[in-house]
């Protein structure tokens, strides 16, 4: 079991979702986050006061998958989120120790799907 965390551009969310559904990954959690990597933020100016290096809005996806779904999920996110420009984001794949479905009490791989 793996936990996939992806940081993507907000306007790519719809495309990523569409690719995930195509790959039959239907269970995702979406967060709105702030951050920046290599992409430079845009300066903001309020009554002459400049705020530099601002954090950009990003979308963070969390998807728990069984091992055979790791590659399809990563590929789907890549397909939906890649524009080739800085700021496209990152995908992290983490080991996942356990998973419990609250409704049934199932554990492990059965609880994920």
């Amino acid at each position, binding site marked *: 079991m793996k936990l996939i965390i992806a940081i993507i551009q907000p306007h790519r969310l*719809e495309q990523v979702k569409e690719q995930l559904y195509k790959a039959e990954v239907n269970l995702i959690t979406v967060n709105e986050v702030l951050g920046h990597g290599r992409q430079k933020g*845009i300066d903001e100016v309020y009554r002459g006061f400049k705020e530099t290096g601002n954090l950009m809005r990003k979308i963070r996806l969390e998807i728990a998958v069984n091992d055979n779904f790791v590659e399809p999920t990563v590929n789907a996110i890549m397909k939906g989120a890649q524009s080739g420009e800085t700021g496209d984001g990152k995908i992290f794949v983490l080991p996942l120790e356990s998973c419990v479905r609250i409704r049934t009490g199932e554990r492990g791989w059965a609880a994920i799907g």
Partner: protein
Amino acid sequence: MATFAADSATTLQPGIQTAGVPAPKIDAGDTSWVLISAALVMLMTPGLAFFYGGLVKRKNILGILMQCFIILAALSIQWVLFGYSLAFAPGKGFWGGFGWFGLNGVGLEPYADYSATIPHQAFMIFQAMFAIITPALIIGAFAERMKFSAFLIFTLLWATFVYDPIAHWVWGVGGWLKNLGALDFAGGTVVHVNAGIAALVTAIVIGRRNCYDKYSSPPHNLPFSVLGAALLWFGWFGFNAGSALGANGLAANAFVVTNTSAAAAALSWAFLDWKFNGKPTLLGTVSGAVAGLVAITPAAGFVGVGASIAIGVLVSVFCFIAVVFVKRIFGYDDSLDAFGIHGIGGIWGALATGLFATKSINPAGADGFFFGNPRQLWVQLLAVVVTIVYTFITTYIIYKVVDKFIGIRVTGKEEAMGLDLTQHNERAYTMLE
């Protein structure tokens, strides 16, 4: 404005001095009502900003608010410098000319051909608010993708070469549509058909938003849109009842039919939503109210309350079809339905005036189709067709000229980041604190 069907403004009510009589007298009630109405109409443009602003993605709301607010500023200046002169100075030509440049000759005494009982400058500033909101209506068509600098130039050119001439033809002394007998009480043709057609043209030539091809673009703040629609409804009393240009019975009639039509149209759209989309939606209901206000605008001084219910119920049917079905079939991205509501609603209102107008409401007006005068419908249709053709062509030319010199559309990257940050270096909402 209420009076352009008549030979001069003074035939509206008995007791008002005619144009030839010297020193017309200023009426305190009329003057205060028109000044208050001007303030009411002024509030409509920020109201429109919130109506539109709530409908866009939240990275673009400042862009919308800024476009509306800068129009309020820029066209206020354009109007007192030369806009009012082009639209309203006497003349039989393409527009009124520069005779009243810088309000030269537009003083504090009444100008009887427009309004015999209020200061000329009161009439001028009331008209200014119409000249301001009309180009602001078009914003809905190209929302979320126009460069701010290009927008400013486009808007100033459009106001000067489209709004000012058409206002002159319909309302100005010597205007040829006015002399033809076309009825437009408060601006159905000049404001709504005009802005609606310009909206359709710009939506088509600027192209669809990048997000729009496959995905819907849900409103980011519907409560803002409801607030904006409520401000529009409120301000519209000045728009329509103020167009009587006096504190009189005609103003009361316009007030009543305006409210009634908005109400009928709001109900009508809510039930259409209920039937075709499963649930009555808030956005549909307030869109219906705005459509009802649009449709009653040309008719407000010529029709009774029964007709206003019919006009309101039917405008929602037509606009619903345009927004829900026609737009989808043809695939143009009239993002906030400026054409679907103002264009379609304005055309219906202008034609409905030709159907339902009656001299029993306004002796200075005319009878419509249902009151034994089918010719009026043809005059109305002619005024609409002329406006559509002229606006369509001129808007297209202005767009292409501005696009050639500075480029109208933002880059794909700017569109993705949003107009707030890329055009104004600001954002509307912070996430942390």
